[in-house]
């Protein structure tokens, strides 16, 4: 009987194919938009390094003036001053890894004449960066603590930079120029997929920066500091610190360096105690005029705050839900009209011995099939929608970010594809229940006398 009902269902779909196409199109377009938004939201909601993300904490100390506004979360709090980063790095925290990161830039160049010098964004950090964040290496490795301590001229290249500068070969031991400084390549990153670029608190979706160098080397070379300087009101024109006044910056109360600590649960309380003690000690020196306040925020909590702030995905998500619902209502109206045209046939089949459940099965197959085809085309439309959103994102970034940067955040994974199928079939089935119920309740005697 199933085979017979399958045959009848396919025959019904072929009958008046324009109606079938219209139903499939309504579902596919609605699903396409819905899945586009859901994919963006899904990708945006991914957490980098999910297995350790709750251990990686952003460290912030409140050294602001007394009159500053209360901070409710990390996003309203300033980062760390230079002197605090140096002091925290010296804390006797057994087993706790700490790193700092700030952005600079320069022209990366190699000796070969045919390679065009490349303006690059560079992260100044310390050796713990690579181990804390489990950065994958294609060649070589991160530098050691000596390189930090003695300000060695070493550099870690991203895979993309290594491809550009060295054609993708193992460049460890080779030399590159950063502006006028000669540095030795000590490692090359492999592809490092970050759902959110958290380490510089930009949180946007992109690949890592093009190179990494020791922070002390960057200071000694007086490389530009691409940061926002949150200074006490006594400091005028903090923008001057971007390229000048390094000595003054190092002793100022300007917060600008992002600082991270990897704190497994058993270390968290101990670390908090040490932060409290540190603030107390600094108070005795006349710093930290406010209450003893610090923020330790892990990556998950940071992203939760950021997601609530962005809100764009949520708004588009609501619109796409509504649009999908409208499309489904359209589809079900067509389905109802199509089924109701068939009451005479169903009445006849019931008179000839078809049970209600047989009629139910026949129409369920038809609805599920419409759901599957709608799902297939919906995935196709989702792909088109995501490509369109990729172009929008490129435009919105003034083409600073590349398609390759954004592609991972604009593509459906298998999980999303399976979800598209499930959503399509289950929603079509759900809204198809009413037409099916109507057709199954056609009385066997109701239409037989009709001419």
């Amino acid at each position, binding site marked *: 009987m199933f085979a017979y009902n399958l045959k009848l269902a396919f025959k019904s779909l072929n009958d008046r194919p324009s109606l079938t196409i219209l139903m499939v199109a309504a579902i596919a377009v609605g699903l396409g938009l819905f899945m586009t938004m859901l994919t963006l939201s899904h990708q945006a909601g991914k957490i980098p390094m999910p297995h350790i993300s709750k251990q990686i904490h952003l460290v912030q100390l409140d050294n602001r003036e007394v009159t500053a506004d209360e901070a409710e979360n990390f996003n309203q709090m300033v980062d760390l001053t230079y002197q605090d980063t140096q002091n925290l790095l010296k804390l006797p925290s057994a087993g706790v890894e700490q790193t700092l990161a700030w952005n600079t830039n320069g022209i990366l160049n190699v000796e070969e004449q045919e390679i065009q010098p490349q303006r690059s964004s560079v992260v100044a950090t310390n050796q713990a960066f690579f181990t804390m964040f489990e950065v994958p290496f294609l060649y070589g490795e991160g530098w050691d603590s000596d390189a930090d301590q003695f300000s060695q001229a070493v550099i870690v290249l991203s895979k993309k930079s290594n491809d550009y500068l060295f054609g993708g070969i193992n460049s460890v031991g080779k030399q590159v120029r950063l502006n006028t400084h000669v540095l030795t390549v000590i490692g090359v990153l492999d592809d490092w997929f970050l759902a959110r670029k958290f380490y510089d608190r930009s949180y946007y979706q992109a690949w890592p920066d093009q190179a990494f160098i020791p922070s002390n080397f960057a200071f000694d070379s007086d490389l530009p500091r691409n940061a926002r300087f949150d200074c006490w009101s006594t400091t005028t024109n903090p923008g001057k610190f971007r390229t000048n006044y390094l000595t003054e910056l190092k002793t100022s109360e300007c917060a600008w360096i992002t600082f991270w600590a990897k704190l497994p649960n058993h270390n968290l309380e101990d670390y908090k105690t040490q932060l409290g003690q540190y603030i107390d000690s600094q108070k005795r020196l006349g710093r930290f005029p406010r209450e003893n306040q610090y923020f330790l925020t892990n990556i998950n909590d940071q992203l939760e705050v950021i997601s609530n702030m962005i809100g764009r995905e949520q708004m588009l998500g609501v619109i796409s839900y509504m649009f999908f619902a409208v499309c489904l209502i359209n589809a079900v109206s067509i389905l109802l009209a199509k089924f109701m045209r068939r009451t005479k046939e169903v009445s006849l089949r019931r008179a000839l011995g078809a*049970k209600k459940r047989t009629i139910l099965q026949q129409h369920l197959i038809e609805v599920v099939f419409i759901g599957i085809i709608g799902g297939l085309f919906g995935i196709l439309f989702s792909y088109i929608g995501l490509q369109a959103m990729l172009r929008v994102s490129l435009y919105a970034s003034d083409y600073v970010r590349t398609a390759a940067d954004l592609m991972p955040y604009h593509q459906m994974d298998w999980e999303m594809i399976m979800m598209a199928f499930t959503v399509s079939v289950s929603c079509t089935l759900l809204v198809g229940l009413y037409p099916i119920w109507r057709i199954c309740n056609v009385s066997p005697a109701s239409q*037989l006398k009709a001419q």
Partner: protein
Amino acid sequence: MLKMENVSKIYRTNLIETHALRKVDLHIGAGEFVSVTGPSGSGKTTFLNLAGLLETFEEGDFYLDGQNVKGLNDNQLSELRNEKIGFIFQSFNLLQELPLFDNVDVPLRYRGFNAKERKDRIENALEIVGLSSRMQHLPTQLSGGQQQRVAIARAIAGQPKFLLADEPTGNLDSLMAQQVMELLEKINQQGTTIIMVTHDDQLARRAHRNIQIFDGQVSDLAQDQTDVLIKSE
């Protein structure tokens, strides 16, 4: 074979109640050919729908082939309908997009016969009605009389004990009506009980027995005549 005792059928709306059949007492024996006549709106089709288990009734008992159908659920009624009853309609009610073979196949599919048995039965039924050479034709390629013969083939393919015919010649000219009537008589002679609703007195007289329905009440002429004979004796 078919026995109704005090069967009543009432159609209800919010405003009115319509007594379509009132306390019908009727017995139709195996192999009979019974015609049902009466004016329009008298309840003939309702009677046929009840007899064909297409509708339920409120009062009384109805025995079909010895089984009381009162209280049977929808599935049981469908099975009984499929197994015991063949339907012939005035407007043929063929599925226009299906070839004759597939039209005749419909009740056999719901009966659960295997492919070979279905094929044998379909070929046999179409042979009986004289359309075995046109199995793959569509109904639209046939005349009205031929379409009604296909409907008869569909009705007899499952070898039911009853054939219920609702104005089977109503849409046919006299020559075709004659052919269809002869076919029904032939089927009846092979043992199938036939109940035929008709407006045509001439055709009604060709049945073994005539039942008249007027205003929802059944007047069984054969039974009345028997009663008169008993009284005169």
